[in-house]
């Protein structure tokens, strides 16, 4: 994986001893600054991650002693149709919800970045769905989307249209869940809002002097300056959505016909309903590899569109 270089002043020297000293000094402070994370990683993460890797080579119910099975879990996985189904569903959900979510939350952030009266209240309202109780959200969505009792279909029936079973027809279930996910766009909206706040005003002023209109200012100032934040939201949003399953679990539990069996739910089910912790760990490690690959692609592509003002290469 390649991460954009963010070299600070003196580039890594080769010749003069003084320069090498400085590089060494910088390296020392680099490690000093990231030391908290290194310690935390070794204490809390490394062991657990490694353990899950070892477990993936065993048959373990978590309730009694594990048995070593070598690569059996991985060969089983290659022949498991649900593995492919779940992976496909998660990619569908991830791309759909992150793609739409990015656009919606960005537009919301633009709207909520206006300097109008009551804006704090509006921001709070738009943030509400991301913090209200998950059960309230689930029940409400059932009341909205239910084929026979739902508000949407009642509304459509008013115009003589017979609405589909949103959560019952396999082809409608995933689009319904993706649309539902837009409702909690408030989370990434906050980050975009923070990003918009950090765009220097003078850039807009300069663009205005050059005669740029609102749209041009948006494309030449706002978007490039926001690109690091957009990249963050894309990467983190994708990681979260490809693993996340809470709402799916409550609303459809993977149905109908496995149309919403997302990868996270499949892992959860394997681990805690079927008590196959070894197989669940194998599933998790494959996912890890897939996410790393996708993230690497995102970082590589990012070189062409993400602009870091604090990057020497620019």
């Amino acid at each position, binding site marked *: 994986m390649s991460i954009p270089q963010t070299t600070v002043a003196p580039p890594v020297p080769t010749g003069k001893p003084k320069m090498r000293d400085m590089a060494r000094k910088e390296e020392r402070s680099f490690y000093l600054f990231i030391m908290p994370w290194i310690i935390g990683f070794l204490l809390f993460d490394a062991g657990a991650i490694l353990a899950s890797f070892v477990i993936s080579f065993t048959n373990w119910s*978590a309730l009694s002693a594990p048995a070593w099975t070598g690569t059996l879990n991985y060969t089983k996985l290659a022949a498991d149709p649900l593995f492919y189904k779940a992976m496909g569903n998660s990619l569908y959900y991830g791309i759909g919800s992150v793609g739409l979510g990015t656009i919606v939350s960005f537009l919301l952030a633009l709207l909520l*970045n206006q300097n109008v009266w009551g804006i704090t209240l509006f921001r709070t309202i738009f943030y*509400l769905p*991301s913090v209200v109780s998950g059960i*309230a959200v689930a029940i409400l969505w059932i009341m909205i989307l239910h084929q026979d009792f739902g508000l949407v279909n009642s509304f459509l029936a008013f115009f003589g249209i017979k609405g589909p079973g949103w959560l019952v027809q396999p082809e409608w279930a995933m689009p319904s869940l993706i649309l539902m996910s837009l409702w909690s766009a408030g989370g990434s909206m906050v980050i975009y*809002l923070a990003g918009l*706040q950090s765009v220097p005003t003078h850039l807009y002023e300069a663009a205005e002097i050059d005669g740029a209109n609102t749209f041009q200012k*948006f494309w030449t100032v706002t978007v490039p300056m926001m690109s690091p934040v957009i990249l963050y939201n894309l990467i983190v949003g994708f990681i979260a959505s490809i693993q996340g399953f809470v709402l799916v679990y409550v609303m459809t539990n993977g149905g109908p016909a496995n149309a919403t069996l997302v990868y996270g739910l499949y892992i959860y089910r394997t681990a805690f309903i079927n008590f196959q912790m070894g197989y669940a760990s194998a599933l998790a490690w494959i996912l890890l590899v897939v996410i790393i690959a996708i*993230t690497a692609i995102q970082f590589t592509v990012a070189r062409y569109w993400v602009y870091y003002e604090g990057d020497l290469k620019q």
Partner: protein
Amino acid sequence: MQAQSSLRKSALGIRQTAVVLKVVTYLLLGLLSISFVLPFLWMVSTSLKLSQDVFTYPPSFFPNSFEWQNYPKGWRVLPFDTFLVNSLIVTFSNVIGNILSCALVAFGFARLKGRGRDFLFLMLLATLMIPREVTIIPRFLMFSAVGLTNTLWPLVLPAWFGYAFFIFLLRQFFMSIPLDLDNAARIDGANNWQILTQVILPLSQPALASVAIFAFIGNWSNLLDPLIYLRSTELYTLALGLNLFRGQNFTQFNLLMAVSIITLIPVLLMFFFSQKLFVQGVSLTGMGGR
């Protein structure tokens, strides 16, 4: 004279555009707000209903009677006072721990160079990428081995060693701050610590505010960790207590929603007031700001 009037004209034009923009903005905000506030309204109305009025068809957003006593009743079903104290301890130490540790680490990744940096950053992101379902148990075993289960430590300690989501977020913000500022400071004899505290952090208030908001809400509503690590009711947090209203066969939705709303209030207050840290808006048109 002529120049002046044309100047006034364009100023007038700008003002008109501004008014139109404002009207459009309010219209959009108002319409969207309705759909976004809906689940919350349903929660509020449910919290004020009698249990036999909770599920009516069509769903009613207006209770028949206002059962205000659902609030004290729900709150007293379990020792929620104790849960509140536990949640405050966990949440605040996480917010502070996360801000301090993540700022340090993010500065390292954004501004300093060292061998293995890219690899380490990859490891950092990898901690987010491995699904939690398979690391819960190994992690529980670790805390169990050092005798820290059934204490608040497993919920509090890790925050002080950085959290990848926030480190990555802050790194992105730090990297959009021009290097000239660091260099100028360095020439004046500032060291890295001073650059972080006197240059980078002051310029990153909105980003720090978002980290604070996310850390607050994430921990306030965290169910999984308290669930796994805590056994004694005296140590339960609000999120855990709240979920106890959901029984296998029986859920008292009115009480559940009443207590949910009480626990939501600090979150909303936090969100509302933390926006002071989001410096009042530079609007898209560049006409706002101050």
